[in-house]
């Protein structure tokens, strides 16, 4: 018998999708039975009370969580988010219900042992409820009490070899795609770069001193599996600057039906024979492809590396050999002024250890944003407020046509006197000779 009646929540379980309500109920039941004789360090009925307080919120249309807190582990300003319930008598199990963000492994590669260890730790010292993964990429532990925080932190860092992630006004847990570990599209080693920057910027990750959050995301190619272009203040997207490698024999194998397009991903239904003109050539966003007399041609200077043709015919087309990454900046979700995608800042940079060139760009941006950013202003908003020109000035980068979304997207370029040959001084009488008042 459930501790609280939850008719509204129960309704959520009736839809076609897996339901978080069923998940929490299962965990509640397993804690009540406690078949493994765990000495639970927080209330055994935490999950029941979580369901109870959520039901009450649905009924009343108001939240019962208080906002924020001072709790954390010593020396860290991020990684723990204090949550308290404002109905602790009714729901003592969730009186404290702090969230912990744990840095996910690179590329989200787990061993089953590591997953089990994480879950065992969280059963023992927390609610047992996790969110794998939060939208930043972290492992999210949902719900524990204040005395458990340092214990969990100790266990994570000493025995599981894992750190807390970022929260608040700091560098958020950097996240990366599986990259070269498994993916032939990867133009650089996303995990190596992600790990290196995570280690280098420990202070920025754990001790908040930014105007607001700041996210790094690493995508090995423009397919953007970790959505860096949509969500990261700095997106690192793999690219190449030579030509797409073409295997003409394989192209014709796709055309002839011997190879399944998209590696067979759409084979659940009969879409008819593969039509290279319709499915590839006509969908190339820059119209830079041609298929004539059994031969595929790409005008690589026009290609924007959208990945479409490569995704459709991976056996025939491969990324180029001269690889690196593009840095784009300023993406964010829609709190102010709507969502924003990131803007091209560095079209191509080689990815070589110790990544000094990349770090120079990062640090110049931080210096600017930390000084000029208003409280709770994301980098993308500061860029809008002060302009791309200002950003180029602080990073010392030269303007480049690839930074312009379309002609006349931003015609307001202001020249400074020292940039103009001969300066601004002019003889007004000379001017009047040619121009009437």
């Amino acid at each position, binding site marked *: 018998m459930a501790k609280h009646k939850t008719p509204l929540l129960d309704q959520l379980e009736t839809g076609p999708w897996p339901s978080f309500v069923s998940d929490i109920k299962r965990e509640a039941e397993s804690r009540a039975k406690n078949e493994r004789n765990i000495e639970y360090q927080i209330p055994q009925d935490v999950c029941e009370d979580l369901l109870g307080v959520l039901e009450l919120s649905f009924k009343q249309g108001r939240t019962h969580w208080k*906002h*924020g*807190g*001072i*709790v*954390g582990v010593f*020396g860290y*300003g*991020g990684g*723990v*988010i*204090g949550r*308290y319930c404002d109905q602790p008598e009714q729901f003592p199990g969730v*009186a*404290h219900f702090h*969230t912990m963000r744990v840095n996910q492994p690179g590329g989200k590669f787990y061993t089953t042992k590591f997953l089990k260890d994480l879950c065992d730790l969280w059963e023992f010292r927390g609610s047992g409820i996790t969110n794998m993964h939060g939208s930043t990429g972290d492992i999210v532990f949902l719900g524990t009490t*204040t005395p458990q925080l340092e214990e969990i932190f100790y266990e994570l860092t000493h025995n599981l070899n894992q750190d807390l992630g970022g*929260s*608040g*006004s*700091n560098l958020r847990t950097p996240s990366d795609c599986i990259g070269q570990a498994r993916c032939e599209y990867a133009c650089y080693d996303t995990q190596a770069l992600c790990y290196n920057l995570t280690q280098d910027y420990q*202070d920025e990750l754990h*001790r*908040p*001193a*930014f*105007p*607001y*959050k700041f996210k790094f995301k690493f995508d090995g190619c423009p397919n953007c599996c970790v959505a860096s272009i949509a969500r990261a203040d700095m997106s690192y997207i793999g690219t190449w600057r030579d030509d797409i490698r073409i295997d003409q024999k394989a192209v014709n194998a796709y055309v002839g039906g011997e190879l399944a397009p998209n590696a067979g991903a759409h084979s659940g239904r009969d879409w008819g024979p593969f039509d290279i003109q319709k499915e590839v050539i006509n969908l190339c966003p820059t119209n830079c492809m041609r298929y004539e007399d059994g031969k595929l041609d790409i005008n690589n200077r026009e290609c924007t590396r959208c990945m479409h043709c490569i995704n459709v015919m991976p056996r025939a087309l491969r990324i180029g050999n001269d690889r690196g990454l593009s840095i784009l900046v300023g993406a964010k979700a829609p709190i102010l002024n709507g969502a924003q995608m990131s803007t091209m800042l560095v079209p191509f940079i080689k990815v070589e250890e110790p990544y000094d060139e990349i770090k120079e760009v990062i640090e110049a941006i931080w*210096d600017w944003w*930390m*000084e000029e950013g208003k*409280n*709770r202003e994301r980098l993308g908003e500061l860029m809008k407020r002060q302009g791309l020109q200002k950003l180029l000035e602080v990073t010392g980068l030269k303007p480049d046509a690839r930074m312009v979304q379309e002609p006349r997207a931003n015609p307001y370029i202001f020249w400074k006197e020292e940039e103009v040959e001969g300066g601004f001084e002019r003889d007004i009488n000379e001017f009047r000779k040619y121009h009437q008042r």
Partner: protein
Amino acid sequence: MEYEEAKEKIVEGLKKKKGKTKFYFNDLAKILDEKPRAAKKLITKMIEEQVLEYWSSGSTSLYGLKGYGKQAQAEEKE
């Protein structure tokens, strides 16, 4: 700036601000009249010495004098 001088400035500066117990990093840097990076070194030390403490909403971080403010009292008790 010397650490002790910075500490004094922060403690005094924050106590003066009536009705507010939580502050943005920028507010502290302004009191110190230092560039963000220099200010951060000093402020981090004040956190280590527990002169200051962090407060976090999850999305934003603020700083306060340790033990000050409603929340601090409520959380200490628990």
